[in-house]
């Protein structure tokens, strides 16, 4: 494997951590500290940047494609191919870094944004260079004033030294679940509400104000900042051949040390749980992939490698890399019912099947979990799920039904018990899956 890095800065010899190498527990890594750690931003000198015939931006896209980097926001699409499809469209592209982490159970983007902002900002500028964009946005939750302020400081530090050729515009977006979806972000930046739009056209075809738009998760861009420095060979030095590199995951629930961990792609889920201190109670199942993910029985999930392909093969999903451990004493149906109620409240109320179907599904699940199903609830759920699935403009309704489907598979015996006999003892336990409180939630779309 040939490795053509754009800078001669020496790659670190440690395998991991990569993204979290310079992360301090207490404060964000400043620009000077960041450059000491990783070297300067590997952009060619201004005179050579777009010199005709040398096609330097194109070389960066080649490098990203060879590295095998995929999106870390949930979809897992090839970043290099995404860049290429943006470049192929007529018109000057726009680059959008999506840091509006919508998953209540995920905090890896927040960790990077608050602790290693310059890795992300480097990645944004490199992506803008690669697709030759002249407009660049970083999008985070607008209600997080401290985060907005610290990012604004980081951007100002770079501006003072002239690091970024295209100024990075920071935008605060409503903190709603579906607002972090890429078409919502694009619509918001175009002056509309932060709600998903009907696609196609997709953002790379018609994005911000109709221009071809590259939307990347902030972790993806942080990886890009390292790939541009150390090369594709270095990136492939960890992970598996089909899923190379490292990734950030959030581990929560009944584990001894919940938090964000950087792992090699393909690390078995069980190893990840042990890395987070191991189970703090006996486990029955793991929720993998967040609220659009799936419940997997603990013994089934344990050896499964954390990659999109391996998780899909067992009926799961990797999403943005969340693993939540459910102890045997908890009621999985009650947990699922609470999450589906939350997802129902988070509908953008644009598509009928989502706007009416999700509340109906949530009500049936709440009844099944907390009152018992009177022998009717499972049948009612089985009727509702196909009426909701694949009938929305975005994946919101499908994410919710995937969660419900997996719950009725992984906890089939529990569900039958609830349906026939009423709630189990677990419903009295304190809720495990995090759901933002009403005060924390953003009810506005604009």
């Amino acid at each position, binding site marked *: 494997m040939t490795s053509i890095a754009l800078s001669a800065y020496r790659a670190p010899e440690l395998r991991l951590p990569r993204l979290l190498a310079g992360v301090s527990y207490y404060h964000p890594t400043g620009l000077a500290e960041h450059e000491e750690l990783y070297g300067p931003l590997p952009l060619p000198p201004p005179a050579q940047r777009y010199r005709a015939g040398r096609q330097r931006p194109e070389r960066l896209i080649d490098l990203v494609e060879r590295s095998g980097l995929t999106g870390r926001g949930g979809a897992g699409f090839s970043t290099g191919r995404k860049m290429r499809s943006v470049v192929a469209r007529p018109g000057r592209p726009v680059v959008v870094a999506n840091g509006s982490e919508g998953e209540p159970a995920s905090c890896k983007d927040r960790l990077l944004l608050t602790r290693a902002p310059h890795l992300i900002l480097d990645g944004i500028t490199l992506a803008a260079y690669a697709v030759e964009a002249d407009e660049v946005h970083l999008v985070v939750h607008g209600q997080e004033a401290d985060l907005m302020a610290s990012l604004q400081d980081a951007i100002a530090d770079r501006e003072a030294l002239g690091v970024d050729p295209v100024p990075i515009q920071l935008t605060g977006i409503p903190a709603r679940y579906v607002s972090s979806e890429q078409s919502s972000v694009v619509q918001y930046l175009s002056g509309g509400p932060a709600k998903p*739009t*009907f696609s*196609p056209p997709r953002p790379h075809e018609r994005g911000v104000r109709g221009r071809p738009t590259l939307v990347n998760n902030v972790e993806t861009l942080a990886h890009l900042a390292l790939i541009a420095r150390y090369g594709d060979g270095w990136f492939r030095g960890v992970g598996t051949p089909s899923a190379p590199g490292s990734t950030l995951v959030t581990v929560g629930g009944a584990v001894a040390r919940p938090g964000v961990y950087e792992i090699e792609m393909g690390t078995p889920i069980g190893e990840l749980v042990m890395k987070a201190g191991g189970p703090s109670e006996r486990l029955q199942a793991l929720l993998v992939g967040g609220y659009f993910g799936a419940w997997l029985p603990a013994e089934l999930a344990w050896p499964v490698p954390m990659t999109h392909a391996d998780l899909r093969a067992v009926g799961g999903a990797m999403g943005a890399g969340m693993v939540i451990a459910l102890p045997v004493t908890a009621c999985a149906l009650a947990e699922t019912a609470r999450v589906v109620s939350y997802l129902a409240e988070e509908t953008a109320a*644009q*598509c*009928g*099947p*989502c706007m*009416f*179907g999700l509340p109906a599904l949530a009500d049936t699940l709440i009844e099944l979990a907390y009152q018992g199903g009177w022998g009717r609830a499972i049948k009612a759920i089985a009727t509702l799920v196909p*009426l909701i699935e694949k*009938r*929305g*403009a975005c994946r919101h309704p499908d994410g919710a039904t995937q969660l419900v489907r997996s719950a009725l598979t992984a906890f089939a015996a529990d569900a039958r018990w609830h349906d026939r006999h009423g709630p189990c003892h677990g419903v009295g336990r304190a809720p495990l899956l995090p759901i933002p409180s009403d005060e924390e939630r953003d009810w506005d779309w604009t």
Partner: protein
Amino acid sequence: MTYRLRVNPIACTAHGMCAELLPELIELDPWGYPILLSPAVPAGLMEHARRAVDACPTLALLLEETTGPSLLS
């Protein structure tokens, strides 16, 4: 040349005209929104499909040309 139907779920507000005019291909769900029984439109139903598309008050029903079996999702 074959044609297929597609619903823009954001534009659709459940008037139900399409199911009225094209019951062979469109059913309504319990909330009044269309369910496509089959997106592909047989030649014999083209006239009816066009009428249903034209009748939609919110222009949410779309008739699109397809060139082969591989469709955009």
